[in-house]
């Protein structure tokens, strides 16, 4: 195994990426909820920059996690 995980278990990198994706997704959702509840110009700017930015990073992290798993299973 490339990262020392037992067969049948998810790779540590892939798990870390999934965790990061969930956390970044939660950050993005926090700023979108803040903007929905208090729609001020500042909250909108935070939603646009920080919220959507971290949500985009979450998608990238999860895409890498999927790619890593597919490579590990030799599908790709």
């Amino acid at each position, binding site marked *: 195994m490339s990262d020392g995980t037992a067969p049948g*278990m*998810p790779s540590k990198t*892939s*798990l870390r990426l*999934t*965790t990061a*994706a*969930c*956390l970044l*997704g*939660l950050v*993005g*959702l*926090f700023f*979108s*909820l803040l*903007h*929905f*509840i208090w*729609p*001020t*110009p*500042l909250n*909108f*700017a935070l*939603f*646009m920059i920080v*919220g*959507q930015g971290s*949500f985009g990073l*979450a*998608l990238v992290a*999860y895409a890498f996690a999927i790619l890593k*798993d597919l490579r590990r299973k030799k599908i790709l």
Partner: protein
Amino acid sequence: MPGGGVFSGDLDNVMRWVSGAGILLGLASAGILTTVLFRSPDWRVSAAAKWMLLIGLFLLPGVTMLFGNVVGFHKVKNSCTQCHTMDPWIADMKNPKSITLVAKHFQNRWIPDDQCYTCHTGYGLAGNVRAKIGGLSHIAHEYVTGVPEVIHIHRPFAVETCLHCHGESAKYLKIDQHVDAEMSPKILSGELSCFECHASPHPRTKP
């Protein structure tokens, strides 16, 4: 009741519904992501986890972000009036005794809604993006660097903004200077500002 009621098609009411839906979808998505975070590592690679992440990380937040943009771009059109810096100009616009162009446009309901945004945003996609970037700099001034004592418009007022409504109208074409062979190209190209002949839209100094 015209314009009222929970199910009215009034734009502000529609935005309330969109906000409500965005909050619900956002909370559902946050619930899914929290659930995934607190489950064991081997569960996180199960088919159930993948389905949950498909919904909680792609579908629901995607719609939430879309709704956030829809609500945000609607609400931000009125945000000029939320900053005290603009209070004197807003007061002049709403003053029934004022004879400035902006006051005339407001009093006669020539621009019924979002008056600041309508005139200070270029038409078309590029214009709107420029307006958003300008808005971000205004937020930076308001919360970080402070608002300057004297404020100026970023760039000369685009003649296209006036011509978008007035150009080619019967009233516009009746004026000799507007159709003059020498002046017309200069007006259309922006070389000659509308305010060379017409009064300033706002008071020249702080009202």
